[in-house]
């Protein structure tokens, strides 16, 4: 169900001279709780539709009275697939997300004003971006929910040469992680495989290091029990504590990196965490 009004558009506000061609939707709830908007950042090889709409997140957040901003990452969903590598770099994506937030009317966090600032929910690669966005934008980010979060980016170890060789002539890929990620990317016919490889290449140029910049706002870490990333949550929580922040952890019994996303316990925890 898509309750509430929403407007969708190809985001055309240029940040650094080139148009990022990002597809943005702003969803307004039927009954607004008066709280700050929530920006949703999806994972690698997914989209706002797959990660947040089909899984029931959008309707759950709208039912909780939250205003929701969704964006498809470059080369994903309904966003464009720019030719230039720079459009895919995590730093450039964060700059575009900041511009999208401002364009949606997000204002800096003000003490005592629950409608000020922005909450973030990220999943997988989206959690990496949310962690870095929170760390670098403390003026506007209020709280963060990080689903399926990592300590290091598996995409940074991706064997691009092997992947390109495989796509060109079917040469088998030796590295298991690379083969798995490419298989995931190819599973959806709608994916632009070459844009996704550009994203991988850009990520290899800016690998994830959560210790480099740590968010200072409260965060909720969530992962499926059968997701190996669950093991990274205590380490991220320690980083947060070291920087004076507070991190709650939630492990979802019986769930893996894919099935954790629809979990009702996950949604309820996020709504409660971001509503307080």
């Amino acid at each position, binding site marked *: *169900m898509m*309750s509430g009004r929403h407007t969708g558009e190809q985001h055309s506000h240029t940040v650094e001279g080139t148009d990022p061609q990002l597809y943005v939707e702003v969803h307004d709830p039927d009954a607004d709780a008066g709280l700050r908007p929530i920006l949703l950042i999806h994972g690698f090889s*997914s989209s706002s539709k*797959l990660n947040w709409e*089909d*899984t*029931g997140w959008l*309707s*759950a957040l709208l039912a909780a009275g939250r205003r929701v901003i969704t964006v498809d990452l470059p080369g994903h969903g309904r966003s464009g697939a720019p030719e230039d590598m720079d459009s895919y770099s995590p730093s450039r994506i964060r700059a575009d997300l900041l511009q999208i937030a401002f364009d949606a009317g997000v204002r800096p966090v003000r003490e005592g004003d629950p409608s000020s600032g922005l909450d973030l929910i990220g999943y997988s690669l989206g959690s990496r971006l949310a962690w870095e966005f929170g760390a670098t934008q403390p003026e506007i980010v209020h709280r963060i929910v990080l689903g399926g979060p990592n300590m290091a980016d598996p995409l940074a170890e991706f064997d691009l040469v092997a992947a390109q060789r495989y796509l060109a002539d079917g040469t088998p890929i030796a590295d298991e992680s690379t083969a798995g990620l490419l298989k995931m990317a190819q*599973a*959806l*016919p709608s994916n632009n495989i070459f844009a996704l490889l550009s994203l991988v290449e850009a990520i290899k140029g800016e690998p994830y290091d959560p210790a480099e910049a740590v968010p200072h706002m409260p965060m909720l870490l969530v992962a499926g029990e059968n997701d190996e990333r669950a093991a990274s949550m205590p380490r991220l929580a320690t980083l947060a504590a070291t920087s004076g922040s507070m991190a709650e952890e939630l492990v979802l019994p*019986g*769930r893996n990196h*894919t*099935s*954790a*996303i*629809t*979990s*009702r316990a996950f949604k309820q925890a996020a709504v409660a965490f971001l509503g307080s």
Partner: protein
Amino acid sequence: MAEISFPLPDLGEGLIEATVLEWLVSPGEQVERNQPLVEVETTKSAVELPSPQAGKVVRIYGGPGDRINVGEPLIVFEVPDNTAGIVGTVPKEEAPKRRVRLSAVLDED
């Protein structure tokens, strides 16, 4: 009262089956149209299926971990006789669409 059965819908992408993760409703419960019914996982993603129908849940098929093929029964609702229709089709709940012109339209050219 009449019963209406809904099968596991086509989930697209050529998928032929899904695994039940968790039911969000139980027999005897009154549900609204579009209320989340069940979480299912396919080989490609996990999705939450909204109810195509308002009514009382009579039966649900499959527990967590069970596979259901597209087209096999997923859930049965009990609905008042007058909403079931003669051949089991369900009238849509939306108000009938009517075009009403609220303001005069000036010459478009």
